[in-house]
């Protein structure tokens, strides 16, 4: 007798990639960004399938777009996940975030059991067994998972414009010994100082602050706590689950007026595992360059063969091409990441660039370390170095 899983996996794939707009535009939703030949949302689903989740235990929250739905169903077919539950959320509101997705899912009664929240941009070797065991032993209501960040492989330069690579780090405070989670913040939120509330320190005088770990955005959360989220958001508008709701929960639960809620939050720390969160352009480049690691982690994962046309006389070195790319004669590509539908005309020299979907590189142009936005056309004989070239779409001038 195989017992029903009491955990439901929820994949949050409705994001728009607000930190990657130059790469995505409005044409490509974040969950379909190609990484090593597979759309981004393939990886969390593959991790879930590998550990034994079945289709009907997985809920995927997406934007209401046909291309996303089609891609999702084809991934489900490939992985053998039948009965995948899909929930669409309206994509109109500007301040849409993970907390909103979850709230909508809760109110439409789609989340019925304890939830394992996974963001679609997490590519990681997730130690599910350790996480679940930890959650059970500690009887925790919310367990977060922290692992080591994926390092840039040696001798590899990441393509794209040279920007100050601001690593998105997470600053985590835990109680040593029991691993209670007492403080959580993102480095981006702390301008110059990290502020620890006095109430936190009073309840937990011995706190260990860790800065070398990355939050995988894999949260195992009890149903009762999720329903509290539903109740809490009626008072305050939370946009991001990780960015706003969780710090709110963690910091406030030490305050005296919150003491009726006895929450138990724990942080499962597994530094032996690695993760990359593809939510910014440098991390996207890193993920694409880490094909070897991805192959190791996702065993039996099939990297589909893309139908590209590569003409004779062209030279490609360290290049990743998406679907349906066309590379014409005498083109020279070095250390390039190209998404779907890119056309590179004859004689072009492209070095260390990221080319978004459907961009066209004109003949005999020379590009070095650029980021070419979606549908952008580089004129012939163009010379660009270290620039971000993108089409001004109307969406950017939001109302």
């Amino acid at each position, binding site marked *: 007798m195989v017992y029903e899983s009491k955990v439901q996996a929820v994949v949050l794939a409705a994001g728009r990639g607000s930190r990657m707009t130059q790469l995505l535009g409005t044409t490509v939703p974040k969950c379909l960004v190609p990484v090593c030949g597979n759309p981004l949302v393939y990886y969390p689903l593959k991790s879930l399938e590998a550990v034994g989740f079945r289709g009907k235990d997985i809920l995927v929250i997406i934007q209401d777009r046909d291309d996303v739905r089609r891609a999702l169903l084809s991934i489900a077919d490939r992985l053998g996940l039948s009965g995948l539950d899909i929930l669409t959320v309206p994509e109109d509101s500007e301040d849409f975030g993970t907390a909103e997705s979850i709230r909508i899912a809760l109110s439409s009664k789609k989340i019925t059991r304890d939830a394992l929240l996974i963001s679609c941009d997490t590519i990681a070797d997730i130690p599910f067994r350790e996480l679940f065991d930890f959650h059970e*032993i500690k009887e925790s209501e919310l367990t977060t998972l922290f692992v080591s960040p994926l390092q840039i492989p040696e001798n590899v330069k990441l393509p794209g414009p040279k920007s100050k690579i601001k690593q998105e780090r997470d600053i985590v405070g835990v109680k040593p010994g029991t691993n209670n989670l007492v403080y959580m913040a993102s480095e981006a939120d702390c301008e110059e100082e990290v502020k620890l509330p006095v109430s936190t320190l009073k309840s937990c005088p011995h706190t260990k602050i860790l800065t070398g770990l990355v939050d995988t955005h894999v949260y195992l959360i009890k149903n009762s706590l999720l329903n509290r989220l539903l109740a809490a958001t009626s008072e305050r508008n939370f946009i991001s689950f990780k960015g706003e709701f969780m710090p709110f929960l963690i910091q406030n639960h030490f305050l005296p007026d919150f003491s009726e809620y006895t929450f138990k939050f724990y942080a499962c720390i597994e530094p032996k595992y690695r993760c990359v969160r593809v939510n910014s352009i440098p991390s996207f480049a890193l993920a694409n360059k880490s094909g070897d690691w991805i192959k190791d982690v996702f065993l039996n994962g099939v990297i589909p063969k893309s139908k590209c046309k590569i003409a004779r006389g062209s030279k490609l070195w360290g290049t990743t091409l998406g679907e349906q790319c066309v590379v014409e004669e005498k083109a020279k590509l070095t250390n390039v990441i190209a998404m779907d539908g890119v056309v590179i005309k004859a004689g072009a020299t492209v070095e260390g660039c990221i080319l978004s979907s459907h961009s066209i590189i004109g003949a005999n142009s020379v590009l070095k370390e650029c980021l070419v936005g979606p549908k952008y056309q580089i004129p012939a004989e163009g010379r660009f170095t270290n620039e971000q070239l993108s089409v001004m779409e109307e969406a950017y001038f939001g109302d």
Partner: protein
Amino acid sequence: MLSESKKSGSPPRPPPSEDISRDDVRAQREAKKLAKAARKNKSFKGKLANPPTSTSENEHPVVPYPAQKSLKTGTTSRALEVKPAEANPSSQSVSIGVSADLLKSDSSSPSVIHSLFKPKKGKELAQSNVSKLYPPFYNVGLKVRNNVIRGANSQCVKLLDAIKDYVRCYDVPPGTTFKHGLFADLEGNMENLKTVCSFSISMSNAVQFLLFYLHNMPDDDGKVIDFKNEILDVIDQYIVEKIEKAVEAIVLYGLEKINEGDKIMVYSITEALMSLLVKAAEDGISYELILIQTRETKVELADVLEKLKKPTSDQTVRVSAVNFSSALYKIRSCSKLLMGGHGLFTNGGVMAQSGSGQLALVADTYNKPVVFLCETFKFCDRSPLDFLPLEEYMPEQFQTEDDFLEPKLIYDVTPSNLVTVVITDIDMLPSNGLAATLRVQEGSTPAKL
């Protein structure tokens, strides 16, 4: 030690003569050394029937130096039961040396020693096993394995609670009767649970009792709900009779042993022992307590202190907590040594927390009585001479930095000649009489419980 074997094999120094030059001599020696090494290589690879004379099991496993390298490559697949992906090459070198020695010596239980040196079982849990296990069982198993549920009594009670929950949710599959289906399924679950955590004696006895009862239940034509209620009642009765009432009985007997002004040394704290100490304090007996403290017993000690702090008739219990090594000195001033038992054996041995055997020996040297408190349901039908064959002794193993797997011992066995008396719920007995008494008792009341 390494050089001994070489010296015996190398040729004696030739007399300095003009016939043979120094280089030739050296070359000869080298050649002979290599030949000897080659012979040793071959013999190790072939998995020998007779052990080489230079090594014995007693001395530290020394593998002749050149042969060690071949061991790494040659015997990996056979010597270890470890998953190859798990163990890294450096750790193999030590453990291969050990296991090769032990296999050669043809010990009757090679798996025993192997289990001492196996790396942690966590990852090896077959996924399929876990999914077939009823989730509350897995929960209990995890907690027992990680020492969250401490103490034999609470482990047993938690397991029985999980079983009650399971019985309540059990649906009879088509094609079998309730009794057979439940029996087979429960048995399967328990087998799977044993891969998660090793059962303590109390847990295995409880499960055995229940399975026996199920087996002997009359074949059903009654309603399923009646059967379920009957089983739940039986389990409740077991808990009340064998655990709760037993503890009360032990406390009653034990109170006779705690006198006014006594100085009692206490170790291996179990539920029965804790209840006894608290009851004695409540009854106003003023005694002095010496608690032996070790790293593993922090939680229990804190519990005891907490309970003794509650207002009693007069605060007349003086408590001091001392280090384990101070027991050697303190025992002189104590009047008796009181310990809680985790299990009883047919040969009269008592299983208790690691270190109790040593304390019993110390007390015996100073002619102090050694008293164990143990409920009869913890009786185990074995006669171990030491602790190695029993799996409960090592729920956890950890690896130090130099890849030497150090087994962590939780329990040990005190031989019967060191035990003065065991206080059980039926009577106060010398430990070797216990087995007989129990058998007689069980013989007279066959299928009652």
